[in-house]
């Protein structure tokens, strides 16, 4: 049995998220893209609006949405601006290890802190020498009595350094590669600090930092799961993150297409709106085709998660397809705008810059193809 309709509650929160994106994000998007400042007041607004930690259960202080509903909200926020949406998505990414691997006590404690006020969370896995190859993580965690001492440098961390809580992946046994990775809950404080702030091509409202761990002592009770389970926790977290990347990509593509349709209907050349020329109309049609398919993919992957079914393959398919669609659609949207599209005065070159990262983060689209290939040939 198939049912493509959203529930009344899903439609209502979709409308709320859309209105929030329209009123609180869009008016600021160009300014923060230009200045690369971090919009702190936005975090407060999102908190007040009930849009932070969407799929954390209500009993832990979250919004209690199922994962599909959270992704629908994510599409709307990214429709507003993917940079702003990234701030909240990084919160999800950073706190999901606690949700997936935390004990009851850990979940109550840390979500109690994260959800009681406007907060940021971050996930710190990537290092200069360990991107796609997570087994090469150099950061170490050494047990000393009832503490672990963490050392190392993480890079490209969204919300990194600013986060109230960072889930840090470090090796407790370098000889074991990925099987030696462990995950720690690290609160803001002594031993963890922001390094260089990255200057990015897109999603510039979100802050991306290096994260420096310098003899960072965390209580042993902050270990998530057991020693050596870090890689598994990271992969489970990334499965969800990849679906979120898919929904955000659809949000960008949709925003760009809407801009192209409006422009093509107004822009007159050779005495007619350019939308009436088949060359342009076919480009717009191709955008609609791709976006429709992409949305169905992220919804299918998210739906599998809500049913408790395996979705690793579908998450990788969704992430790859949706982000590739966002890249193609936004590139074509710039083309539809012609010379104006290339100018920063118009919003569409930003869509193109924002789209690109989605093909890279949370596992490059090449890594996704490896994941998919391994699953279908195993």
């Amino acid at each position: 049995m198939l049912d493509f309709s959203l529930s009344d509650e899903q439609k209502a929160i979709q409308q709320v998220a859309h209105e929030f994106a329209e009123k609180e994000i869009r008016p600021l998007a160009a300014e923060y893209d230009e200045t690369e400042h971090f919009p702190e007041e936005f975090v407060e607004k999102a908190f007040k609006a009930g849009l932070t930690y969407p799929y954390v259960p209500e009993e832990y202080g979250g919004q209690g949405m199922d994962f599909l509903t959270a992704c629908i909200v994510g599409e709307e926020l990214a429709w507003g601006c993917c940079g702003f949406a990234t701030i909240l998505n990084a919160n999800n990414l950073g706190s999901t290890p606690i949700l997936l691997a935390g004990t009851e006590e850990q979940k109550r404690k840390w979500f109690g802190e994260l959800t009681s006020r406007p907060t940021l969370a971050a996930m710190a896995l990537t290092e200069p020498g360990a991107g796609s190859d997570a087994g090469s993580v150099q950061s170490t965690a050494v047990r000393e009595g009832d503490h672990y001492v963490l050392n190392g440098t993480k890079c490209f961390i969204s919300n990194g350094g600013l986060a109230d809580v960072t889930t840090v992946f470090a090796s407790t046994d370098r000889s074991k590669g990925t099987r030696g990775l462990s995950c720690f809950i690290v609160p803001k404080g002594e031993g963890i600090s922001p390094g260089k702030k990255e200057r990015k091509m897109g999603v510039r409202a979100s802050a991306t930092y290096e994260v420096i761990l310098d003899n960072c002592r965390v209580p042993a009770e902050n270990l998530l799961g057991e020693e050596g389970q870090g890689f598994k926790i990271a992969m489970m977290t990334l499965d969800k993150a990849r679906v979120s990347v898919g929904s955000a990509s659809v949000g960008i593509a949709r925003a760009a297409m809407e801009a192209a349709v409006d422009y093509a209907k107004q822009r007159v050349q050779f005495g007619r709106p350019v939308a009436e020329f088949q060359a342009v109309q076919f480009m717009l049609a191709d955008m609609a085709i791709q976006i429709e398919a992409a949305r169905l993919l992220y919804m299918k992957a998210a739906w599998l998660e809500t049913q408790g079914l395996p979705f690793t393959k579908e998450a990788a398919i969704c992430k790859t397809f949706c982000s590739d669609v966002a890249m193609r659609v936004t590139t074509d949207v710039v083309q539809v705008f012609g010379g104006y599209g290339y100018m920063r005065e118009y919003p569409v070159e930003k869509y193109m810059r924002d789209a690109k990262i989605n093909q890279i983060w949370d596992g490059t689209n090449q890594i996704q193809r490896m994941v998919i290939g391994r699953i279908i040939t195993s």
Partner: protein
Amino acid sequence: MNMVVCVKRVPDTAESEVHIDSSGKGIETGKLSFRMNDADNYAVEEAILIKEKIGGTVNVISIGDEKSDEQIRMALAKGGDEAVRITDPALEGSDGFALAKALAAAVKGMEYDLVLTGALADDDGCAVVGVALAELLGVPHAAYVKKVEVLEDGKRIKVGRELEGGLMEFLEMDLPAVLTIQTGINEPRYASFKGIKAAAKKEIAVKSVADLGLDPSEVGEAGSWAVLESFSYPVVGEKAEILEGDPAETAAKLAAILKEKGLV
């Protein structure tokens, strides 16, 4: 404080092209999205703010078909307590006065101290319903309200009305009363998912005109003072003067024209 808020489902026409439908008495709505009337959204927020401050209940009323449940539930999700939807084919063709009769009949059956409506509907822009409702209920009203303060005994309120040029007129009023709320009076909140889920479980009482004790002839065209004849597009003016010359010249010519016509 027992409060009633009236909300209306309206098409979102801010960024859409509006076309007259084949009946000539309506617009094509197929491609339009719908939302709560802007000023009503502020009225809902004001009621909830008062409830949060001094306690009480917020009853939501809307006239419309079952699609209006979307807007009613949004008001419930933000903090409304109960809801009534007035649905009856007899209401077709009602003017603001006839709609106010139906609302008054519903409000009379409730305990109320304060009724809040939006000052103006975004679709027909009549600004009639709230004021007519007060008249029919036999209670005082204030229109275009931009500030509400409940006075200590809870039996009176002080309201600020927005006048031209940013002037505010302050009035003290006895309760019960009707206020038509102007946009900008507050910052409407966003409904949370928890609120949306709680609202989904609430019952919306659906009432016909007869349920409210009215005869169908009291509403619709028969019960209206004004009857909508037709919509038409504004006639495109014929006279347009194109100023020629370089920017400095055209600016000087434009300034001269504006001065001559006494517009600056």
